[in-house]
């Protein structure tokens, strides 16, 4: 297979490392077991470039475990998968180079300033000083963060931090960004603004893979999968899911499926 060493951070040459051109995420019978416990049970799905893919499920359904496998943080027990064209069981470091990740737990450095966090993460993804500086200026302008630039991240309000964490996770222009419950604990207006940033990222060709517990956010996704007890029980666009389950909203769809769960949230 030929991979251009450029793997540019700014453009997504079609098939940059890919066996498939448009399928950015492919999961085939992906399974993760911890001892006797099967956290993720044989899941298969595909995500296309530029899509916003919602990954729903009750607590303990296996969402985070599945996401960690796709990010190369956890090696699948069986099954296979590719992300950005790289095997998640074998080429974990190449997967990592081509994705962004924003965890549930806020994970920028509180004791570094806003620009310093951006510089750090830009730098470790291989961006050059000049590139980082230019993009930082641009980002500060877009986010209206010019006054916060020199503040320690720890001193910012949660909504600011989340927007910053998301912007940092896509700063190196990854092919896919994985968001694990990115909007926990903030008000609806802040969440709305956050989703504007997500839409903006898709317009640049970045694929979004997002887990959430907010059903209004599920409505914003192009397609939604719902996990119950480690398995994917439903996968379609919100519109089709509502039709299929004869529900008036996504909340109703989710309730119908999640009620079948036998696992108790640990």
């Amino acid at each position, binding site marked *: *297979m030929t*991979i251009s*060493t450029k*793997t540019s951070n700014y453009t997504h040459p079609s098939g940059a490392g890919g066996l498939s051109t448009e399928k950015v995420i492919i999961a085939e019978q992906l399974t993760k077991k911890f001892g006797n416990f099967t956290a993720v049970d044989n899941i298969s799905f595909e995500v296309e470039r530029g899509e916003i893919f919602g990954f729903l499920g009750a607590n303990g359904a296996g969402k985070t475990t599945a996401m960690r496998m796709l*990010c*190369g*943080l*956890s*090696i*699948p*027990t*069986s*099954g*296979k998968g590719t992300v950005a064209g*790289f*095997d998640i*069981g*074998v*080429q*974990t*470091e*190449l997967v*990592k*180079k081509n*994705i962004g*990740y924003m*965890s549930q*737990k*806020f*994970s*920028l*450095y*509180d*004791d*570094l300033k806003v620009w*310093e966090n951006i*510089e*750090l*993460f*830009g*730098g*470790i*993804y*291989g961006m050059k000083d000049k590139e980082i500086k230019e993009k930082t200026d641009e980002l500060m302008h877009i986010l209206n963060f010019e006054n916060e630039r020199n503040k320690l991240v720890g001193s910012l309000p949660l909504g600011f931090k989340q927007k910053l964490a998301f912007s940092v996770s896509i700063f190196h222009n990854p092919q896919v960004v994985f968001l694990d419950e990115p909007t926990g604990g903030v008000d609806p207006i802040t969440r709305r603004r956050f989703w504007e940033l997500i839409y903006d990222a898709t317009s640049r060709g970045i694929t979004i893979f997002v887990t959430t517990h907010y059903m209004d956010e599920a409505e914003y996704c192009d397609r939604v999968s719902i996990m119950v007890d480690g398995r994917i029980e439903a996968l379609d666009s919100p519109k089709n899911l509502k039709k299929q389950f004869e529900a008036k909203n996504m909340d109703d769809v989710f309730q119908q499926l999640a009620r079948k769960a036998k696992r108790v949230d640990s």
Partner: protein
Amino acid sequence: MKKIENIDNSDSHLRVRDHSGLKYLLRKEFKQLIRNKFLPKLIFIFPFMVLMVFPWAASYEIKNLNISVVDNDHSTYSKQLTQKIISSNYFRLTNVSPNYGKALKSIEENKSDLILEIPTNFEKDIVNRQGAKVLISSNAVNGMKGGIGMTYLVSIVNDFNVGLMQKLLPIAGINNTLSTIQIDTQYRFNPHLNYRVFMVPALMVMILTLLCGFLPAVSIVFEKELGTMEQINVSPVPKSIFILAKLIPFWVIGFIVITIGFLIAWSIYGLVPAGHFSTIYLFTAIYILAVSGLGIVISNYAATLQQAMFIVFFFMLVYIMMSGLYTPIDSMPEWAKWIAAFNPLKHFMEVMRSVYLKGSNPMQMTKQLFALIGFAVFFNSWAVLSYRKNQ
């Protein structure tokens, strides 16, 4: 899982800029270090505390021993002997007991450490040249203190004896009775047996170990607890680069600390190494890598700060006990010497004491040099191997 055959697993051709992450990670580490409210102060205060307090407190020189005298004779000579003991500065007279039983009681009550019993007819026997006897008993619960106290007291009594002889015997007789073999002792490298000369270089090793071994362990586990470690794990930063970025700041800290140590040793104790500073810096550079590597290994296995602390305490305790800081390795049993051989502290302490006291150069300490290089390579390889970016 079967590996997918046709996928190229050698990602070397994509590792074009991998090493550049180091620059950014180092900037991060140094900024975090300087902004920390506690660490920069610790780096300066800790060496002062240790080097200014311990050498005075941790001394084998025994002073202020409490003595209980049982004087059954009540004579001039018995009073002179008691006076001589008190005026020696080593002893403090707790009480003059009427009998041995009472004196023993004061030992049991921890009021005195030694008993000197002067028998009746003490003076008479001396004057009649029948040879007077005194009884010395000491509390050996603390064997060291008891033993040393006993030795001091015996030498004072001997001294008293010699003084009496000179007075009582005719001049001609002195040579006959007192001419014994004279032994000249000479203590090399520390002629005054100054305890601080021996302790200060070893304490510098302790400070380096605590700061450069303990802090890296804490620093990585802290990132695990904050969740920032996961953000690093999901990035393409190579394991060795991340660990190197953690090591280098402690290397710098180590050099600052040892330099502060030199200054304190010189300004307070007037100690300057007999050997070369460059020798110490060379060994320090290798030693810091060894202990920091160990710290990082510990942090890779510990999930929480609490766990990391306990493992660190375990290692520190064993390492300090087996380092020769207080008790010489040479007097340990064979198996204990083997344990000590696997202790980086022991080797570095030997180096520091040799350079400070004897002026040794690296060529005279190749054994320690290779041992420390071995530890540095071993712990750091282990650190890279045990750091897992995925499960």
